[in-house]
């Protein structure tokens, strides 16, 4: 067979495989949106959930998911950024840093249930944080940190070595080079890393069941005192997130419209992740363009 025919066959096979992947994705997302969107209404998005009656919404769960996401990123991003910069820019190549890298790899492959149980034993029980948003955020930080660190390190390493040399040769200190040259150039990659991890956090259920809890006390959105138990800002209160809610309805929901609520909540979950991705990408490009003056 000549190279041309082989090339055509290979192209056909690759296109077919991509087609299969796209088809599965479209079917899956389409099914969820198709079955779920009819149940989504303003009332559904804003009202509290019902345990026994039909007509419950997901307002509190939606808020909890976003609140937990922001809190988790606030904790994990600075740590991951520092660790990523250290590992790539400063760390000498020796057994200590190799051990750190291996530990990160191992940590990143931990099943989230294990992270959740670990968080339950350590934060909820041992540190007496109880089932709370804070426990959940810390557990999710454990879950998120390895991948975020890894991907930040990867985006730093994609900046050409020449840029680093250019900065140093101009008489910049290492920190000035990292902050002024490397970081802006790695920014789109770092933002992608944050977005990807945000999607994971937003959709995570198993690690939260044992840490943030499965109950959603009714929130009073007029109460912004962070120490009041009904305040949405209180991070010592238990908080059921959207993903946990979906899991719970499907495993033990007894409200008459359980399947409708579950379908609607799933559609909202997917849409939220989608909107989050698109807007974060847009924002990232804007910042990058502003820093680099590119078009």
């Amino acid at each position, binding site marked *: 067979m000549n190279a041309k025919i082989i090339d055509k066959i290979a192209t056909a096979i690759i296109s077919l495989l991509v087609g299969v992947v796209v088809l599965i994705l479209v079917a899956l997302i389409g099914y969820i949106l198709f079955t779920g969107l009819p149940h989504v209404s303003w009332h559904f998005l804003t009202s509290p959930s019902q345990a026994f009656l039909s007509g419950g919404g997901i307002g509190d769960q939606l808020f909890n998911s976003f609140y937990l996401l922001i809190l988790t990123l606030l904790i994990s991003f600075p740590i991951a950024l520092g660790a990523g910069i250290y590992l790539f820019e400063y760390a000498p190549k020796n057994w200590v840093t190799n051990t750190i890298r291996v530990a990160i790899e191992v940590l990143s492959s931990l099943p989230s249930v294990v992270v959740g149980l670990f968080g339950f034993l350590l934060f909820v029980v041992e540190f007496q944080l109880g089932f709370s948003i804070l426990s959940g955020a810390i557990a999710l930080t454990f879950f998120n940190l390895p991948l975020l660190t890894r991907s930040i390190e990867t985006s730093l390493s994609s900046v050409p070595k020449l840029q680093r*040399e250019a900065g140093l*040769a101009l008489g*910049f200190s290492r920190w000035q080079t990292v902050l002024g*040259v490397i970081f802006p*150039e790695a920014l789109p990659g770092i933002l992608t890393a944050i977005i990807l991890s945000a999607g994971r956090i937003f959709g995570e259920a198993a690690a939260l069941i044992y840490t943030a809890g499965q109950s959603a006390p009714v929130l009073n959105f007029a109460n912004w005192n962070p120490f009041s138990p009904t305040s949405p800002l209180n991070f010592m209160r238990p908080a059921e997130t959207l993903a946990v809610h979906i899991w719970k309805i499907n495993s033990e929901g007894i409200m008459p419209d359980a399947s409708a609520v579950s379908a609607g909540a799933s559609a909202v979950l997917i849409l939220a992740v989608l909107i989050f991705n698109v807007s974060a990408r847009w924002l990232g490009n804007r910042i990058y363009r502003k820093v680099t*003056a*590119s078009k």
Partner: protein
Amino acid sequence: MANVMTARNLRLYYGKHEALHGIDLDFPKQKITALIGPSGSGKSTFLRCMNRMNDLVAGVTITGSLKLDNKDIYSPKTDVVDLRKRVGMVFQQPNPFPFSVFDNVAFGLRLAGIKDRALIQERVETSLKQAAVWDEVKDKLNENALAFSGGQQQRICIARVLAVQPEIILMDEPTSALDPVSAGKIEDLLLSIQDKFTIAIVTHNMQQASRISDQTAFFLDGKLVEVGSTKQLFMAPQKEETSDYLNGKFG
């Protein structure tokens, strides 16, 4: 004539392997010194000793002395960041930062603590003029430097180095990635700034060395074979290897 930088018995090791075998070389003030020699002869390695870029390579040790204004740059007291402000470098591949032209040149000034906007503006303009690229970029100062041609990028990089006003400029084959016209522009600009800076340039292009340099040093296998005024070295080389290399017998 005063020498700005002097190397004495400079040896460089990669691990145990000795790559530079005791180099003695002087760089006279406000002259252009060309370092020539075949690939792997150690000329770039030597150049990178002069602003301690070799510090970035793991396992490198350097012995002997390399003095800038009679102070050893490898002494523990040397502030490397400060050294690199005094000894600038232009690389083989143009490597502008992914910022606007203006910011590329202004960045070093801002980091050096200059806050006066008018002064920054003036320095940027002067540097771009010195680097003979001002006319081509003056209306596009806010565009990304990477959007320009390779030759223009390289001159922007030179302007970036000139802006921080170093005493010595090291150039590691600055024109080898460029077309002849761009290379010619860079040669002209080097000749026009040599009354303000001391320049050391590594080049594979013998014509280039003979056109622009005052002094030429010939490297071979990590040794400095011969150094002399460019005219003398090209017209009447003292060593047989030099003459063979200049006549294209190897390299």
